[in-house]
């Protein structure tokens, strides 16, 4: 629209002259709705993150209740030694492990499930489709409560483990990182501090309690993503499948060289949605212990809420939310670059050239 507007000389009407006006008119309702409910609130929150608002009255009224402090809320999250930075860093650390586990596992699982239920020769397909999708339509709060019961110290999971001779952990009470389950002291290389946390703490991995939340998240979201893969798979042209069959490819080759490349946009969608969702995890944390045990299930989203409503530091809480916002943007951007067609195409060409070159692997 803007390109045509630039080309058009001022004053000259023409048959397309009023299209821009009509365009704006038609998009106006959505722009207003998005503006009022999305854009303006975000700008307001951004302003709050630049104040020391204590929740008393309007943050825009100024005065003692909401002084403008510039970037202090942001810098203090990273540079001020103390409890706020420590907790925030811990929450980022927790959430990092959470994302690292949940996103690959849920993407792989949902893809595999979609492959299974997309199989034309599977009996009772619609039953399985419904069954796999079921956790996604159930309230996350209800599922969290069920998991609390399942993983109780004398719950079903530990009873099953006991049958095979394993003494299960106290799932929700175990603050140890899974890489530190063996115990032991921090070795010399791990005593250095980065942003108020020792390397030993940074590399402890998700706590046992966090792992339960990882399982829960994978279990609840897989169904939705399975549905996306399934829809994309059913959209794939049958001819390509047939052509591949005629070329005599094995099922594995077909999956690796035909199906997966054609599903690239869906993978991009699923991974992006996964990244955004996992960095914003809140409700499960709220229900399953509010950061307990030992703050190892704290996430920035929950901490931001707590910092605002419980500790009455709304500015600092909003700043945390925006730090997460930036993290999500950066990760999505990085992932876009990683999965971009051009880049993968180039690396494939390079591989092919290397293979063709004399001495290359045949």
């Amino acid at each position, binding site marked *: 629209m803007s390109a045509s507007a630039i080309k058009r000389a001022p004053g000259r009407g023409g048959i397309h002259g009023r299209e821009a006006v009509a365009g704006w008119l038609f998009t106006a309702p959505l722009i*207003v709705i998005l*503006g*009022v*409910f999305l854009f*303006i609130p975000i700008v*307001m929150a951004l302003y709050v993150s630049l104040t020391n608002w*204590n*929740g*008393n*009255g*309007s*943050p*825009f*009224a*100024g*005065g*003692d*209740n909401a002084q403008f402090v510039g970037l202090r809320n942001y810098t203090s999250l990273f540079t*001020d030694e*103390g*409890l*706020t930075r*420590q*907790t925030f860093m811990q929450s980022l650390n927790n959430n990092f492990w959470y994302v690292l586990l949940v996103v690959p596992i849920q993407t792989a699982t949902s893809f595999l499930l979609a492959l299974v239920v997309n199989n034309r020769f599977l009996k009772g397909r619609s039953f399985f489709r419904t069954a796999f999708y079921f956790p996604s339509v159930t309230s996350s709060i209800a599922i969290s409560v069920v998991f609390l019961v399942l993983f*109780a*110290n*004398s719950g079903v999971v530990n009873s099953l483990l006991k049958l095979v001779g394993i003494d299960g952990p*106290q799932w*929700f*009470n175990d*603050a140890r990182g899974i890489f530190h389950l063996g115990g032991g002291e921090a070795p010399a290389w791990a005593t250095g501090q980065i942003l108020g946390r020792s390397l030993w703490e940074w590399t402890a991995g998700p706590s046992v309690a966090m792992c339960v939340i990882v399982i829960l998240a994978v279990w609840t979201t897989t169904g939705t993503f399975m549905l996306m893969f399934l829809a994309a798979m059913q959209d794939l042209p049958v001819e390509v499948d047939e052509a591949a069959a005629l070329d005599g490819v094995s099922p594995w080759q077909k999956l690796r060289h035909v199906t997966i490349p054609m599903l690239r946009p869906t993978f991009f969608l699923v991974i992006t949605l996964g990244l955004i969702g996992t960095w914003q995890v809140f409700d499960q944390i709220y229900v399953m212990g509010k*950061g*307990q*045990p*030992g*703050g190892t299930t704290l996430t920035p989203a929950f901490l931001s809420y*707590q*910092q*605002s*409503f*419980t*500790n*009455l530091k*709304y500015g600092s809480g909003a700043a945390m939310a925006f730090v997460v916002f930036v993290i999500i943007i950066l990760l999505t951007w990085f992932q876009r670059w990683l999965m971009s067609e051009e880049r993968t195409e180039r690396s494939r060409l390079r591989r092919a050239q290397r293979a063709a070159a004399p001495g290359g692997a045949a």
Partner: protein
Amino acid sequence: MTTSPLRLRGALVGGVAASLLLAGCGGGFSGGSTGSNTAASTQTGPVKLTVMIGSSGDAETNAVKAAASAWAAKTGNTVDVVAASDLTQQLGQGFAGGTPPDVFYTGADVVGDYAKAGYLYAYGKDVASAGFLPALEKAFTYKGTLQCAPKDYSTLALVINTDMWTAAGLTDADIPKDWAGLETVAAKLTKNGVTGLVFSGEHDRVGVFLKQAGGWLVNADGTQVTADTDANAAGLAEVKKLLASGNVKFAKAVDAGWGGEAIGKGKTAMTIEGNWISGAMTKDYPTIKYKVVELPAGPAGKGTLAFTNCWGIAAKSKNQAAAVDLVKAFISTDQQMAFAKAFGVMPSTTEANAKYKAEYPANAAFAAGGDYGQGPVNFPGWGPVKTAYNNDIANLANVDPKSVLGTLQKNATAAMSGS
């Protein structure tokens, strides 16, 4: 009344977006016109008050409603009692939006935060004549001013399952008087999957051992952090020793949310809980026979913790005079006794407390705690410090008490100095 034409004009001028915004936020972001007016103002004629409570259940909600409507009927005003599902969050919305409830429960651990942020109308001087228990008055004093009228209080005591007690061959003479006695009975009561003593692994329970050892986290007038003292270390070391014996566990280790659940489900023979336990026992575990005794004394004598709420009045309430009048009705001796009967709390005034002791001898151990109970730490910024400290306590079996207290000292000092 006077603001509506203004707001209407603003909406017309501001256009579609602004009016949607106003509607969406209930006028909360409409600028400082309503927000900056924090001075006490009094409306004449019948007023409508909103009371927001964080209720323990129907019994409490109904009792407060009954008391409020009695006052309303007498004075000709109306009172709307709202039982919040998440009091902190709902109050937060009210304060931020400029329309907080007139009267609301305020916990002693948040009173400092609220007072500092200017949420509270400090009407303490109007009600001080009621004669509150000194520990409670101190709990709600911020910068030398009593912020609000203590509503009631609870203290911690030792709750014993009497059937298990007699089955273990113990008598009244064995009721622990000191830490050694506690260790002995805990060992005797631990058998057949029952743990001798179970309590929540958090500051609000473990603190009694600090108190019994002669320590506390802040000094008497709450102006200095005194966490890393030898007395506190001795208190925490005792808890660690108890945990190491295996006869004492934190509630989570036995799959219980709190001590009441542990004793109710027969997982423990003793717990450390407050008087709210009686309501839970009657309602959820009516078959368990139990009695309540004072906590054993430590090397520095008796010690317990007192928990309390007050009737906060919003600085932005337009009906502060009426609200103070309502609170006066709530804290009258007769009304407090009615509350005590309805949901098991103990009255906040000296006069009503004496009456309570006479009327409820079974709860004498709780009431006795009123004389020596320690009120909560209440300086602004204590909340996150406490959360971090609680994390350390939950992990006490694996860490050194002195380093826990060292961290606490550092964090609490930073918070108190307002960083």
